[in-house]
């Protein structure tokens, strides 16, 4: 499925890179990582785009995190942004994916497949040994009642308590345990609202924001504020554990970089407003 969709997306490329796309697609069917970014910059469907980008998620050595996709990466891959939003909404309702709001910059969202998120949650819970064994029932209640029914990015305190109390008595200590384990975070503006978060993702988010700045400064230092994509991909970022393709997609989607077709290939240019 992945290969057929990949060759389909390779065929949807701009005519210039089409001839390069097909032999590459065949040759690299085995190892998806080494595909040039230029060949699969555009997809036709949100679900396909999500699967492809999950498969291309960089392997991190220090931290174990299941693959997640940023919303801006989706925008850069699928042409029609409204359609992306609507597809995401229906995928959320079907509980196939889960959307989280990140605290790096405005309007950053991370998308994670539901089974990845549940696995990540299991790892986090296992690693966090609760002092009081009674309280650790709350994790099961959380998973069973809250995650399945509340598909938003945030939840209010009364609602959280009422959902958790379907499992048993709920006290403030239970909620504190959830926060300490890294599954919920208080919103800064309002004490009563909590964000859902991906546990153990803090170091990666730091790397994300620093990697963005580094990539932007890299392009800013060039004479004409642009670089050929093929050359840019070969560089490594010092400050971010995520690879450079992750950041390129993210920045194109949020509008800070733009792609320009040129006779030597695809150029990445800093967009000025």
């Amino acid at each position, binding site marked *: 499925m992945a290969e057929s969709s990949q060759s389909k997306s390779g065929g949807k490329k701009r005519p210039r890179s089409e001839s390069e796309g097909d032999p590459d697609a065949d040759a690299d069917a085995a190892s998806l990582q080494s595909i040039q970014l230029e060949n699969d910059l555009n997809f036709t469907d949100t679900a396909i785009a999500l699967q492809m980008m999950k498969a291309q998620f960089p392997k991190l050595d220090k931290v174990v995190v299941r693959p997640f996709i940023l919303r801006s990466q989706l925008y850069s891959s699928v042409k029609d942004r409204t359609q*992306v939003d*609507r597809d995401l909404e*229906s995928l959320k309702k079907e509980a196939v994916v889960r959307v989280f709001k990140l605290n790096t910059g405005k*309007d950053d969202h991370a998308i994670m497949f539901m089974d990845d998120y549940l696995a990540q949650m299991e790892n986090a819970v296992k690693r966090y040994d609760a002092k009081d064994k009674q309280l650790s029932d709350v994790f099961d209640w959380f998973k069973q009642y809250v995650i399945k*029914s509340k598909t938003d990015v945030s939840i209010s305190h*009364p609602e959280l*308590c009422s*959902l958790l109390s379907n499992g048993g008595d709920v*006290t403030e200590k239970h909620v504190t345990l959830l926060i300490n384990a890294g599954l919920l975070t208080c919103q800064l503006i309002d004490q009563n609202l909590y964000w859902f978060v991906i546990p153990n993702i803090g170091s990666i988010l730091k790397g994300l924001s620093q990697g963005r700045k580094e990539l932007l400064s890299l392009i800013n230092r060039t004479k004409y504020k642009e670089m050929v994509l093929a050359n840019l991909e070969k560089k490594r970022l010092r400050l971010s554990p995520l690879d450079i393709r992750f950041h390129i997609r993210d920045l194109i989607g949020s509008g800070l970089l733009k792609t320009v077709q040129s006779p030597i290939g695809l150029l990445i240019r800093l967009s000025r*407003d």
Partner: protein
Amino acid sequence: MLEETEDEYLNRCAAAAQDFVDFLDEEDVDDDEYFHRLMVYHKPGGSDQTRTRPVPFPDPTQTVDEPRGVVRVGFITGQVRHEAQRRAGQASPTEQHFVWSRVGFVFRLVCSSRLRRGGREELYMWTWKALNQREDGSLRPSAFRRGVVSSRASSLQLSNAKEFISLHRGAINSLEIDSTEGEGRYLLSAASDGTVAVFDTHRPTSSSSSSSTSIAQHHPLFHLPRAHKFAISRALWYPVDTGLFITASFDHYVKLWDTNSTQVVLDYKLPAKVYGIAMSSIATSHSLIATATADVQVRLCDLASGAFAHTLSGHRDGVMSLEWSSSTEFVLITGGCDGAIRFWDIRRPGTFLLLDQSLSQLGTRPPLLPTPTPSNNESTSLPASSKSSSSTPILPAQKRRSHKKIQLKPPTQSSHPGMASSQNRATAHYGAVNGLRATADGFYLLSSGSDSRLRLWDIESGRNTLVNYEAMSIQTSKPIQLAVTPDSSLVFVPCLASLKAYDLWSGTTINTYRGHYESVNCCFFNAQDQELYTGSNDRQILVWSPSIPAATQIEEADSKGGITSIDQDNWSD
């Protein structure tokens, strides 16, 4: 007869960057072919840099289906045809005569002064074909007007025929044209240095005497240097006529001015600095000014009595933008610094609707544009219980043990129909809501937030339509003024130092207007003339009008030298 086909000839001209000559052979030409061969060729380096090949004439068999809009009925002079033909290929005078003799019926456009100097080639092409259809009655006048208006609105460029000389010494915060019936003529502008000015958009006061082009200059009719002590955030015309205008400023005052004597008639002192004011243009039973201040309450000031009418409380932080509904005179929409958008019915206490960005139209209404992907079919057939996330969630069947629930906060709201919960923390944006605009038909609301998102809301159901307007960056500190074309096709958003025009329904960027040196604060679309006025921090008011090709500027210079501008109809030949 040409030895090569017409297409080959045209391609050869395109490749050699030459103008082509349109040979009209009398016995060949019937109606369709005449129009088909009327192509326009742009020289590279001309006004339109992006085209180096002929613009093909639209298929005559296609029906023109343009979006709705309102335009004045017009006629077109022979002058227009003359110009279009001339640009179409430097046709010789005899051919021009021939062209005109085929015109059976003559129209004259009321704004002919503009069309004579302006209008893009597509407008001419479409107008040619539409004129013919209008002649034989297959195109109704309203459809013709709509088509002309929408093609003009989507071809705006920095005007090289008109400019406003602004005497403001501070950033321009507000622009408004009066909404008197049939004639939107006077532009009211307010700036951060506490000054107010009024311009006449129809009649210039002088023109700069440069050699090739003359730009009509509009000086202010009057300029009040010390209208307020601090910056003025908004200035409005009285909706009924231009005898009064209202200004609101950061010095906590809202003042009502008489236009002719430029004196303050009434003023209201508010407890905090005023970010915005609004008056309903369809109100017949009340004359209330709604004020948005840094205080959490929205105050309604009554013009008739000179006092405050009542206050609306419910926001948790200051209110930055507000707008009266364009369909009912009693509904007020406010956007706050806390990110919430509330709907108030001023006859009842409390909010009756709060917009939540996580509630989308899924399951309630079909999306705005038909989408080709099959995955959309599943979304419309979702179960009804997924409609609202505030309804009871779907829980797996379980046995309920008798257990104590923890003490929740006491349930707050009564069942009064006008009261939406003040505990409801739903937000429409992740930052402050700094711009609100309702479409003219009253069905949709656009809101811009300091999280740099623009959202389109369906008012009747209160849901987010999830239309995604491509990347923009909106300034966060000030309220901004959005503009929507009356036929609800384009929305103009100030994004830092440029202005972007988006298609309302699909969210694609149609155009970016770059001309200001600093951030743009306000924009106003003049629907009568299809012009856009923008004001920014660089103290300038810029005019964007439907674009004028370079060729006509040379023609104007010629016409000054005494070449007869042919405004006659040579159909008798």
